[in-house]
């Protein structure tokens, strides 16, 4: 039976992933800021087969609270076989362009809080000498694009941090997975006009995450074709790229 901590557990992608582990009979520990919704999710996961489900309130930007929260989770589960970090916000780029506070807030929620969590979790997992740390970054971090470069910057920081941390944790037998979803049909993208064929379902992304954790994949592009889309975008000469409005 796997012991799994999910941070940002009310996220659509996280919930879909939790359902797969619940069906497998896992022990789940869920953290999220909306505790009413978290309660509903916990009851659902229990009925879907989770051996146990515990919950705790969590505010990503209250960095000082993290250590205590993680320790309680570790005590409750006994060990961390898998930790998934999923919280995030997709702010409005246009607003951030004229509002520094918004920019800082986006960086804070999407980069700083995640990096702070990873730092603390890494030390605990290093001692365990086992387990997987799975972090949801984004294809948006692969190259800054005019439509969302503030969010992209935060995700780039997370991706780079993961890269270094992976090489460190590898030596203590801890696996680190960087998850880079493309466009996913979740509340984060609700109301946006996105091309239907590129839009993945959270369930589809969740399946890919579970497989990647099992196979100890380093970097997951999901759905898979985003690896090739991003390859094209990364290798586009700047002289061309800057003229596009991607």
């Amino acid at each position, binding site marked *: 039976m796997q012991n799994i901590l999910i941070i940002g557990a009310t996220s*659509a992608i996280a919930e879909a992933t939790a359902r797969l582990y619940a069906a497998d009979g896992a022990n789940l520990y869920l953290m999220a800021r*909306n505790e*009413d*919704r978290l309660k*509903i*999710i916990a*009851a*659902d996961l229990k*009925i*879907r*087969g989770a051996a146990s489900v515990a919950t705790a309130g969590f505010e990503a930007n209250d960095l000082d609270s993290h250590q205590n929260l993680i320790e309680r989770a570790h005590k409750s589960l006994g060990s961390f076989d898998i930790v998934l970090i999923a919280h995030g916000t997709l702010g409005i780029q246009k607003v951030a362009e004229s509002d520094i506070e918004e920019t800082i807030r986006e960086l804070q929620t999407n980069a700083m809080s995640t990096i702070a969590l990873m730092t603390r979790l890494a030390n605990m997992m290093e001692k365990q000498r086992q387990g997987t740390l799975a972090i949801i970054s984004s294809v948006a971090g692969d190259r800054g694009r005019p439509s969302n470069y503030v969010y992209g910057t935060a995700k780039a920081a997370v991706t780079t941090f993961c890269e270094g941390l992976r090489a460190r944790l590898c030596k203590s037998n801890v696996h680190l997975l960087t998850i880079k979803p493309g466009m996913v049909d979740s*509340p984060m993208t*609700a109301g946006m006009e996105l091309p239907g064929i590129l839009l993945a379902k959270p369930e589809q992304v969740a399946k890919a995450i579970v497989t990647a954790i099992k196979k100890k994949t380093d970097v997951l592009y999901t759905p898979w074709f985003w690896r090739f889309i991003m390859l094209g975008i990364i290798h586009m000469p700047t002289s061309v790229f800057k003229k596009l409005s991607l």
Partner: protein
Amino acid sequence: MNMQGWGRYPVIDAEVHTPGTKEDIQALFDTTAVGMTPRGLGRSYGDSALGDHILSTKRLNHFLEFDATTGLLHCEAGISLSEILTLFVPKGWFLPVTPGTQFVTVGGAIASDVHGKNHHVAGCFCDHVEHLDILLDPERIIRCSPYQHPDLFHATCGGMGLTGMIIAAAIRLKPIQSAFIDQTTFKARNLEESLNLFEIHAAAPYSVAWIDCITGGPSLGRSLLMTGDHATKGSLIPGKNARIGLPLDMPSILLNRYSILAFNTLYYHRIRKVSVQSHVHYEPFFYPLDSINDWNRMYGKNGFTQYQFVVPKDAGRKAMPVILKTIVDAGKGSFLAVMKAFGKQNNNLLSFPIEGYTLALDFKIEPELFPLLDRLDAMVHDHGGRVYLTKDSRMSPSTFRSGYKTWTRFQELRMNYSALGRFRSHQSTRLGLE
């Protein structure tokens, strides 16, 4: 975005909202004044789940509580019957009533008060609903049942989403020992024999007939009647949900008279003996069409409609031959023609089933179709029958009113609970149910 029902007719431009919590729905009330349409998995055929502002229950998909001793399941309205089966069949529980597809939501099953092959003994879906929670407006989420707010309960069950948004419900599952069904298929050579078979097998837990809607003359109304019951042997494995897709819109020419004729003849002659017994998994027994993804595209780009009517039992022997003959003579009969004998009517104001005989068949949308369906409406009306709302995309307000005499009480109730105008659909507007 463009939205449509299962029949892919009509298509309308709608704004789709996918609230995740009651709070989200309540926030929508502040921005949306023109009326909202709840929507589940869009398996209703016509325009019942269409409107300018659609409230999808996609994210209201949580199980809330399950009592393993009584089988009482409390869940949110967006949970699908397929999810319930996948999780609970292995634990020895089955749906008390199921329609011919498992890809419908609990909310949709309640709003249409759906029936299954066991209507004659088990009634409708809502006869197994212990209670439901309905959201009327930001201040009011009301729990109703046959004992609490019974007026609201009986209007909401079968009320096509016009009384409010169902948020959650408690349903009584029924115990089974096996995921398999012991099925017997009987052959009937004409309509008379078909109707007799229903009477002979009135005690069978499940029964339905596939009826030939192409062949007339002495063989008019020939059919295969399938009866079944949950087996006591066999494992409790849930369905495979293994599905194949239809690649493109199939040209509607494929559905011409001859291909249908070939299909029906083949189907009928497959059975050589008078009755054949088999042991089949519940999926092919209840959901034969679910194995083909998007089979609704088979009727081509213009879409199709399913015409389902019921006539009262005492009128049945007179009505069925004339109506069926009209269908056969028109030569537009479908692939799917399902006949069933309904049991007693329940107390829900707009529930479709009344004691009698029902027939459901698909028609490809084409201009000549509408006059034919109007003629059928008139015949159904003359025999005291009615047409099923969840399949309808074209009946007139007067056909609706003559079939559902309690519609005035339904409207009064909507007024009393301030649902008039707040919850509406393309269909309700078309039927004059503002």
